[in-house]
C-alpha cells in the first residue's frame, strides 16, 4: 500500500499541480460562501425571534417612551432593517460584533474573555477522548467479541447515552463533595481559586485542579463516538487482503496492526475529529453549567435566555465559523491522507 502511494506521487505530481490548486480554491471558496451565508442568516434569524429588543434590554424596569426611544437610537434599532444589516456588515468587517444588551459591553470582548476557558476545557477533553477512543477502538476491533471489546463497547455506549448533566452532577457529588469515607478531592465549581499564591506554577496547578471533573465528564461522554468509529472502520479493514499479504511477509501481528491496518482505518476518524474540533469552540453547555465553567457555552446559554441579540449573533458567527473552517481543513487534509480521493 505505502509503496504504491509513493510511486504514484512521484510519477504524477507535476501534472496535477493545477488540479490541486483548483481543488483547494474550490474548497476555500465553498467555505467562504458558507461563512457569508452564516453571517446573513445570523443577522436575519435572530431578527425573527419574537419580542421587541428594546423592551428586552430594559427587562422589568418601568421606562418611559423617551427612554425606550433613546435605547433604540443607541442600538440603531430605529433604522430600517437593510440599514441595520449594512451597519452590521460594516462593523463586522472591522471585527466589531456590536454591543451586548445585557452587559453593555462589546460582544467581541465578551467572547474573547470566554473563548480561552472553553478551548482549554473542550480542547483538553477532545484530545483525551480521541486518544482514549482510538486506543480502545483498536483494542476492541482487533479482538472483537473478546472481553475487552465487550467491556469497552458496553461501557462506552452506556456513558454516551447518559445525560451529561446528570453524570456531571454524580461526579461532582462523588469526587467534588465526597461520599462516605471518600473525601472531596476536587473543587465543585469555577475555573480558578481567588487565593492562589502568586507565580505561574500554582496558578497552572489550580486551573488543572478545577479542570479535572468537567474534563473527565466530557471525556466519559464523548470518547465512545471515536471508539465506535475506529472500531468499525478497523473491522472493515481487517477483512482486506493487504493485511493477509502483510502477514504473509512474516510481519508480527503488532506491526501489521500499527503499520498497515490502523493508518487506513484512521481515515474516517479524521473527519470526525475535525468536525468535533469545530465544536470545541461552542463549548459544552451542560458541562459548563454543572461546573460553573466560565466559557462560551455558558455565555450562549445566557444570551439565549434574555435573548441578547448582538451576543447571540456574535456567538453564532464564531461557532458556525469555526465549524466551517474545520470542515474545510478536514476536506483538504483528507485529500492529503487518502490517495483514493486524489485519484478520483
Amino acid at each position, binding site marked *: 500500500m505505502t509503496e504504491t502511494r509513493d510511486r504514484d506521487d512521484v510519477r504524477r505530481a507535476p501534472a496535477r499541480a493545477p488540479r490541486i490548486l483548483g481543488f483547494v480554491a474550490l474548497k476555500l471558496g465553498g467555505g467562504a460562501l458558507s461563512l457569508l451565508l452564516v453571517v446573513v442568516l445570523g443577522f436575519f434569524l435572530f431578527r425573527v425571534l419574537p419580542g421587541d429588543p428594546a423592551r428586552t434590554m430594559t427587562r422589568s424596569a418601568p421606562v418611559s417612551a423617551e427612554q425606550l426611544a433613546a435605547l433604540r437610537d443607541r442600538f440603531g434599532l430605529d433604522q430600517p432593517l437593510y440599514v441595520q444589516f449594512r451597519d452590521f456588515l460594516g462593523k463586522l468587517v472591522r471585527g466589531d460584533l456590536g454591543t451586548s444588551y445585557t452587559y*453593555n459591553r462589546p460582544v467581541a470582548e465578551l467572547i474573547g474573555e470566554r473563548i480561552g476557558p472553553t478551548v482549554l476545557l473542550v480542547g483538553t477533553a477532545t484530545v483525551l477522548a480521541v486518544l482514549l477512543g482510538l486506543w480502545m477502538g483498536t483494542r476492541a476491533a482487533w479482538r472483537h467479541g473478546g472481553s475487552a471489546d465487550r467491556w469497552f463497547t458496553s461501557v462506552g455506549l452506556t456513558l454516551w447515552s447518559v445525560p451529561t448533566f446528570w453524570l456531571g452532577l454524580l461526579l461532582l457529588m462523588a469526587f467534588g463533595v*465526597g461520599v462516605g469515607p471518600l473525601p472531596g478531592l476536587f473543587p465543585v465549581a469555577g475555573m480558578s481559586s481567588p487565593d492562589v499564591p502568586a507565580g505561574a506554577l500554582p496558578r497552572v496547578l489550580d486551573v488543572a485542579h478545577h479542570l479535572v471533573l468537567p474534563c473527565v465528564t466530557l471525556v466519559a461522554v464523548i470518547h465512545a463516538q471515536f471508539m465506535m468509529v475506529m472500531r468499525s472502520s478497523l473491522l472493515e479493514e481487517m477483512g482486506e487482503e493487504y493485511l493477509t499479504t502483510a502477514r504473509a511477509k512474516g510481519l508480527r501481528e503488532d506491526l501489521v496492526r500499527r503499520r498497515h491496518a490502523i493508518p487506513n482505518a484512521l481515515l474516517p476518524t479524521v473527519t470526525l475529529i475535525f468536525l468535533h474540533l469545530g465544536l470545541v469552540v461552542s463549548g459544552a453547555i451542560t458541562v459548563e453549567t454543572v461546573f460553573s465553567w466560565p466559557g462560551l457555552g455558558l455565555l450562549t446559554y445566557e444570551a439565549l435566555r434574555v435573548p441578547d441579540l448582538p451576543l447571540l449573533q456574535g456567538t453564532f458567527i464564531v461557532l458556525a465559523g469555526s465549524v466551517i473552517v474545520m470542515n474545510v481543513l478536514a476536506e483538504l487534509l483528507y485529500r492529503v491522507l487518502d490517495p483514493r480521493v486524489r485519484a478520483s
Partner: protein
Amino acid sequence: MGVRTAGVRPSFPRAAAVATVVIAGLLLPVVLAPGALSANERGDGSGQEGEVTLRVGIQQEFDSLNPFLGFSRAATEVFRLIYPTLTTHSSEDFSVVPELATDWESSRDKLTWTFHIREGVKWSDGEPVTAHDVAYTFNRMMTDSAAATANGNYVDNFADVSAPDEGRVVIRTETPQATMRSLAVPVVPEHVWSRVDDVAGFANREMPIVGSGPFEVTDYRPQQYLTLEADEDFWRGAPTIDRLRFVNFENSDAAVQALRKGEIDVARKLTPAQFDALKGAENIERVKGKGRRFYELVLNPGAANSAGDPIGTGHPALRDARVRRALDRAIDRSELVDRVLGGHGTVGAGYLPPIFRKYHWSPPDGERRSFSLEAANRALDEAGYPRGPDGIRRGPSGRPLDFEFVLHGDSSTDALVGEFVEEWLSGLGIEVSLQPVSDNQVNQRTTAGDFDMVISGWSVNPDPDYVLRLQTCGARPDPEGGGLPDSFLCDERYDELYSRQLAEFDRHARVELVERAQRRFHEMATGLILFYPNALEAYRSDRFAGFEKQPAERGVITAQQGYWGYYRAEPTERARTAAGETGYRSAAFVIVGVLLLGALAVFSVSVRRRRTAEHRE
C-alpha cells in the same frame, strides 16, 4: 518481548498495570496525607492567618459594575456595599434611617427637599464625599439618557437638583413625591465620573473601584467571583469581616454542594427541596426568611393602552369582574403553598407581603373569598355563564370559556401552579390551555395584552409606591410601547387612592390610603395574589455564628435593603483562627503525581516499543 510470536497476548496486561499505577498515584497522596485534604475543607480562602473572608454563592452574573447601568439583583447588591445612598432602611423593620444624609426637610408645598450631607465621609481614594457628588449623580441621570438606564424612574419627576454648598443638596420636584425619603440611587464620586464621557460604554472595572461604603471592590473575574475588601475607614466603623467574596454558580445544586463542602459560607435562593435536604446537615444553619415577593395570577380585564384603545387577545368573559372573582374562589391557596412551595411560604391575601407589617393588608372575614368550588360554580351560574352540552361554560355571546394561561417555561413553580389551576377550573366548566414560554415572551405577551391568564410577581421595596403604581392607568403601555403594565387595571377609584398616598406625608394617613388601594385592588380581582414565597438561605455555622437579619423577626441575611447582613456578620473563633492555607496544595500533589506517572508510563512504553520494533526490522 522479541521472542513472542504473532501477538497472541498483546500488551493488555501492561495497560492494566499502567492504569493501576496511575490510579494508585492518584490516591497515594490522599492515603498518606489526610491532613493535606482536611486543610482543603478548612481552608477559609483568606490570604492571611486571622483574616476572615465571607464567601457567598450567587446564581446570577453582575450585568454591569457601572451603577448607572447595572440593575440585576447581584449588581445592585454590590452597589449597596460600595456606593453611598442618601438614606437607607433599618435592619429592624425597614424604616428609613439616615445614611449619607444626616437629616432632611421639605418645604411646605412638598416640592423642595433639602438633604444635609454627613461630614467627614471619604471616598476610598481619600477625597471627601460632598453634596456636589450627590448633585452631580442626579444631574447626570437627568441629562444623560444612558445614565438613566438603571434608576431613571427616581428622577423622572425631578425639576432640578443643586448643591448650594458642600453640606447641602436641594432637590425640587414637579409634583409632590412621597418616595423622596428613600431614593435608592448609588451616589458616585464626581472627580472620577466627570471624566467618563460615554456612560453606556464604561464598564467601571478599574480596580479598586472608587466608592465609599463598608466594602471596596478589589478583584473581579466575570462569571467567576468578585472580591470586596473591608474599608477600615468606613464612617460607621469597619465591618466585622475582612473580606467578602461573591462566587458564581451556574446551578444551585452545585452551590449547595459547595456549601456542604465548605467552599462557600452562604448559599441563597434555595429551592424548597434543597432547603429540606439540608436539614440536619453538619455545620449548616438554615434561614427561612419572610419573602419580599408576591406571586400573582393576572386575569386580563380587557387590556388597553394609555390612550384607552383596546389591545391584545384577552377573553371577553374576563372583563366581567364577577367571573374574575368566581375564578378567585376556585383557587385553593393553602394547597398551593403546601404542594408547590413545600410549605415554605405564606398564603396570599393582600397586595403587599406580610414582611412589610405596616403596609400589609389582608381582606377581613366578610370580604375574603375563601376556597369553594360550589360557591364559584354558583357565582358563574348567577352571572349568566351556563354550561353548554359539552360541560364547558358559554359567555353571553356563546363563546366558550377557554383560557390561555401563559407561564414562565423554566419555572417549576409556574408549571405546578398551572396544573393545579387547570384542574380546579375544569371543575367550573372552564378549559385552560397551559402555555409555558420564555421569560422574555411572558413579558412581551403581558405588555401586548396577549393573554387570558398569566403568572406575574414582584419584589416589593420597603416603600410600596413602586408596585402600587403598576396597577394604575398610567402604568398601561403607551401606543409606542413604553410603560410597564401588570394586570391592566385601570380604575378611577384605585388611581385616586394611589395619587393620594403618593402625595400624603403623614405616615398614618398614608398607611390608611395604601390599605384602601389594596382593598380596591382586591375588589377588582384583576390580579389574584396566590402566595408570598419564603426566601430560603443557609450558612456555615462552624464559621459564622450569625448575621444581622432584615427585618429582625424572620428576616433574610443576604440581598437586604442595606448592607447589614454582611457588615455585621459574626465570625466564629474557628473562622478567625483557621490557617489560611488553601486546598490547592493537596490538589497539586495529586495532579503532579498523576502527570508524572502518566508521562513515565507513556515514555517507558514507547521506548520499549521502539526498541522491539528496531530489533525486529
